[in-house]
């Protein structure tokens, strides 16, 4: 059995916390296999900080590939580096988290390695056998990778972030090799600036559906989200109706979230939406229709018009927060 290579992500030289979920998967897989080293990989420019941070998570060793032309992530330049390191380190499995980078990069790595890939893995069944959701999470497939090399992307919401080990492993550097962009270049990044946490990282998400009726009504949800330090989300129907921007969309076609608390307001609970939030620890549904499917997954349901209860909820949450 070969080694397990974990592709970690860094942002401005700091380890991205999403990478810790892939480490949890790798630890579990190592346990199942009973053999093989856990090797972390950090790619970029000036990444020694991220590499030494990664070294604190109980890995066998960390490889750092530091190169001026790898400063910005591009699948074209990163995939050959990952493939080359995987081969050099005797890895037979490469994994990473299903972030936007992981989803973009890992299949390209699989192509270069001639490897089969399992996406959004939620469980380990054997050395190369995994659980993964399909059909918007309505089915869990048991899959087996049959190629010598395997690539896995890990569904972030299904794996708790790994805890630091309290000790550090060695950090080695590896050569980037010839870096080719294939003529592609990143022109600019339009960052979304919001004082609220990112939807996929938020501990609390307050979402609204088309029943919110108008864009300005979302301010009621924003008020609650801000009180709880959470993010605002929406259904596809609300996005399509132009109430909020599409990047707030929670669901199979949008973002998948699993906060500690998910508050669904005026959301009926279409299959596509449930696929994106079913993993939440506690679900609260507020809907005027007692038959709405959302109540079948909600821990606490309140049958009411949002117009009647949101102002009261906001005031009472304020009081709770003030008393803490």
């Amino acid at each position, binding site marked *: 059995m070969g080694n397990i290579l974990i592709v970690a992500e860094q942002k401005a030289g700091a380890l991205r916390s999403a990478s810790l979920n892939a480490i949890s998967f790798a630890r579990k897989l190592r346990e199942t296999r009973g053999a093989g080293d856990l090797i972390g990989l950090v790619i970029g420019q000036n990444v020694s900080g991220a590499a030494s941070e990664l070294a604190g998570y109980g890995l066998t060793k960390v490889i750092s590939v530091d190169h001026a032309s790898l400063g910005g992530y591009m*699948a074209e330049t990163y*995939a050959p580096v990952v493939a080359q390191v995987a081969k050099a380190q005797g890895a037979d499995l490469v994994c990473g988290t299903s*972030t*936007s*980078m992981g*989803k*973009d990069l890992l*299949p*390209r*790595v*699989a*192509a*270069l390695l001639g*490897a089969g*890939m*399992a*996406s*959004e893995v939620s469980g380990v069944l054997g050395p190369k*056998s995994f659980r993964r959701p399909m*059909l*918007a999470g*309505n*089915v*869990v*497939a*048991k*899959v*087996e990778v*049959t*190629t010598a090399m395997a690539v896995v992307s890990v569904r972030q919401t299904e794996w708790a972030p790994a805890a630091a080990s309290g000790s550090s492993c060695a950090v080695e550097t590896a050569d980037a090799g010839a870096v080719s962009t*294939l*003529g*592609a270049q*990143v*022109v*600019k*990044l*339009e*960052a979304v600036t919001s004082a609220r946490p*990112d939807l996929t990282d938020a501990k609390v998400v307050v979402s609204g559906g088309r029943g919110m009726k108008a864009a300005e009504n979302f301010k009621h949800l924003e008020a609650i989200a801000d009180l709880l330090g959470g993010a605002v989300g929406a259904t*596809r129907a609300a996005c*399509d109706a132009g109430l909020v921007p599409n*990047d707030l969309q929670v669901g*199979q076609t*949008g973002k998948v979230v699993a906060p*500690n*608390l998910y508050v669904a307001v005026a959301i009926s609970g279409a299959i*596509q939406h449930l696929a994106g939030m079913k993993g939440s620890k*506690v679900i*609260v549904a507020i809907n005027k229709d007692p038959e709405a499917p959302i*109540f079948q*997954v909600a*821990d*606490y*349901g*309140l049958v009411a018009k949002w117009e009647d*209860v949101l102002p009261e*909820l906001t005031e009472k*949450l304020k009081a*709770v927060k003030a008393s803490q």
Partner: protein
Amino acid sequence: MKILVTAKRVPDPEQKVKIKGDAVDLAGANFVVNPFDEYAVETALRLTEKGSGGERSGEVVVLSIGPKDASQQVRSCLAMGADRGILVAGDDTALDSEQVARIVTAVVQKEKPTLVLMGKQTVDGDANQVPQLVAGYLGLPQACFACDVELASDQASVTVGREVDGGTEFKKLPLPAVVSVDLRIVMPNAVRNAQGGATYGDGPRYASLKGIMAAKKKTIEELDAAALGVSLTPAVKTVGVEAPPERKAGIKVESVDQLIEKLRTEAKVL
């Protein structure tokens, strides 16, 4: 400008999924074009037309892999306005991403399109791999999860806005290249070519009656993997399926006070 678009047939995502034994039960399933692929077709059409009602300036070829029945979904893309279709025979319920990507790669090598457009994922397999695999096999640049595409006036490059964690990244790719599209690509101003400033409606277009009639006369070339020189061995086998763990329904609360009380003392999330 020649654009190859992939379009898989998938079970209607609005229908309830049934499991029978070790597989998903597709008996009686209604098939539709994978929604993300439909967005890719819409994107291709917009890139090859001058504006609303303007003349076309390019060819859109729709590729699907599946049994003979899948020609219906190819035909519906042709009815939207695509020019011709290719249907590669295969068991679309059993092929894995690797095999699909090998077939797509072979068709790209045969057709030599200027641009390959795909949906970011199919809504049945949810794997999100084929565009990246094809780009990797062919050594072409890639831009995944596109929400904005602009074709340069010399048609030698595209600049793609793609959804990344924390915002939109704009990536310029020389052509040929592989682009996978996300939902936002079908917003009215999300696709621009250098020829005109047309705006579109929200979402993919419906086939017009004229389009449906015209599609009947368009050709769908039938191929198989062997004819394309692809030998297929699965890289990922599905050995079984199961229902996800049931989430048990909770309780209904009577008031905001009771809700807050439960969240504080029972769920302990406040």
